[in-house]
């Protein structure tokens, strides 16, 4: 990230500036997903039972597997942030590769899941064959595809950025500015992970509540 060059600033100035920028951006992101959560809240309060029933059509084991994959990717990202503070360039680079690979694995599982849902006729508006509670189920899956789709888009952007950063770290030196970038990207990655932590129970586990 390019930052206006200050005249005389303390060493931590850049790090604090870019991370404040990321935090403000994440506040925007939170409100962006907030629209979906409001829609979900409406659906869940109006049609509590039907939502729980519709949730049974999801593949909760794949969702659980993906939760594990994404949490692990956050772990390797957290390690990358720590090692970047220690200026261990090669370790950081490898950890970023692991993070990106786990992110890609998540997307792969997600698309297998999407394919299965397509064949099961769960895609509202395009291929929807559920008869029981058709409208509520359609609404549930409408929000499901929107929420997980927007999440997958964020993850894709995250993977591309992680790969780009890891490519920039392929040879020395390892300036402080790169370490700041790893840290800020880590914030973004954890945010995308945290959104999933909310999506997972709302869409996969809500069936257990009925």
């Amino acid at each position: 990230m390019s930052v206006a060059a200050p005249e005389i600033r303390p060493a931590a100035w850049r790090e604090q500036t870019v991370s404040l920028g990321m935090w403000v951006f994440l506040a925007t992101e939170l409100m962006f997903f907030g629209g979906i959560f409001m829609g979900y809240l409406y659906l869940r309060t109006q049609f509590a039972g039907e939502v729980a029933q519709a949730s049974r059509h999801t593949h909760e084991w794949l969702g659980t597997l993906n939760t594990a994959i994404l949490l692990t990717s956050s772990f390797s990202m957290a390690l990358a942030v720590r090692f970047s503070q220690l200026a261990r360039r090669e370790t950081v680079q490898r950890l970023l590769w692991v993070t990106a690979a786990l992110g890609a694995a998540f997307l792969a599982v997600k698309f297998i899941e999407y394919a299965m849902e397509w064949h099961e006729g769960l895609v509202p508006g395009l291929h929807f064959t559920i008869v029981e509670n058709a409208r509520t189920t359609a609404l549930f899956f409408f929000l499901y595809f929107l929420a997980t789709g927007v999440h997958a888009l964020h993850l894709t952007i995250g993977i591309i950025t992680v790969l780009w950063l890891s490519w920039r770290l392929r040879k020395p030196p390892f300036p402080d500015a790169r370490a700041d970038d790893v840290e800020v990207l880590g914030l973004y990655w954890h945010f995308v992970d945290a959104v999933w932590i909310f999506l997972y129970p709302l869409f996969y586990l809500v069936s257990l509540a009925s």
Partner: protein
Amino acid sequence: MSYLEEGFTLRSWLTTRDHKRIAILYAIAITAFFFVGGAAATIIRLELATPQGDLVTADTYNKLFTLHGVVMVWFFLIPSIPATLGNFLLPIMIGAREVAFPRLNILSWYIYVLGGIFVLYTLIVGGVDTGWTFYTPFSTMFSNTHVVEAAIGVFIVGFSSILTGLNFIVTVHRMRAPGMTWFRMPLFVWANYATSIIMVLATPVLAMTLVLLSAERILHVGIFDPALGGDPLLFQHLFWFYSHPAVYIMVLPAMGVVSEIITCFARKRIFGYRFMCYAILGIAGFGFLVWGHHMFVSGQSMYAGMVFSMLSFMVAVPSAIKVFNWTATLYKGSIVFTAPMLYALGFVGLFTIGGMTGLYLASIALDVHLTDTYFVIAHFHYIMVGGSVMAYLGGIHYWWPKVTGRMYNEAWGRMAAIIIFAGFNLTFFPQYILGFLGMPRRYHEYPPEFQVLNLFSSAGAAVLAVGYLLPLVYLGWSLFRGPRASANPWDARGLEWKTSSPPPKDNFVAPPQVDAVPYAYNPEVPPA
């Protein structure tokens, strides 16, 4: 060498990262959109000169007021002061060389242009007829116009204001010059800071709402259409959660501009500086809690209505603090009636009328009568046009010497300010009466007994049009023939007046050091 002389090619402008040049790019773009929206308003007022629908068809009329609303709200008013004067002045006023993220800043302008292209495309292929509010299920199920294209345009342009807001927040937190403490910042900076918080937190909600709306319209599955199991009230909640705070995006920067001008031309330190800061934050905060007052007759819970009504009344408290403090600043001041001062005083009067009538609309029982009448139209035009546009023009005049290095013709400036003030009142005051008598908004025909007041309004619109075209002429002329401006032609305080006119690329020759309170116009002001 000034920032204007850093490069003369088109390329040097389109690839710039200088916040001052980006401000000018924005000013050119929003001025173009202002006249597009104004053209639509002109046809609307021509149509309403007679009770019969004789100039345009009902369908065309619907598209015209939708175009007017969409363009004026998202492509003019929202970016108006923050993206132009804010971009130019905010870094200078806090003694910074740049905004925190210069590349994001130019990106935000390109995003704005991209969104604008979508809206112009919508206009060319046939327009939208939903009103700027895109209410469902009409917009998702029944309208046969280009709703999705318009929604995409508004979705895109939202990200330009998010990026501007993000940049301002980080700039204010991290780029202040040594000694520029929070309570030494000019009120214009405070106002833009509070506005930025609203931009960052409210705009994404509108973005997601438009995604939901477009998905519902394209896929015929959705959460807003009752026929599909959805709820149109959900749309209204989400829409107004953005669009009410958006009103404060439009008016808070205007208040910032007016504070700067009044204290300068009253030659007196602003009265109650800290309360002005708190009032700005208070308006921004309460602004998030009042959206339901747009929905008193929508069928939302009666108790929700009562709470929203009470909270809306509370917004009047910080707003009144500001009006009282401007008035108290004028008291015993040595007032100079320059053109910017006339605009600023016009703002105070018109904002007060607009704000007071807002209290009528915040009262549930009265609102039931006034909802969807011209009273509402008059009310929000007093805030947005009488308020924001007056302040924007005042700011343009006040900082014109700083931005361009040229002086405009003061007599022409005063005349335009007076013409705009007169034309504005002639246009919109009759609409209060029309609304109170029951004339509904958004119809191209009306009963003949309303014609006299409508004629006043249309005549006023013609005066207003002249008033808005005048500055284009004499400000444009001053660019080439105006006398050179000194660094501080108004003898004003503030860091922007301590650098040359126009400023150098890095804003200051030497990094400024701040050691005093703002607005030290009277010499006896005690140190902070």
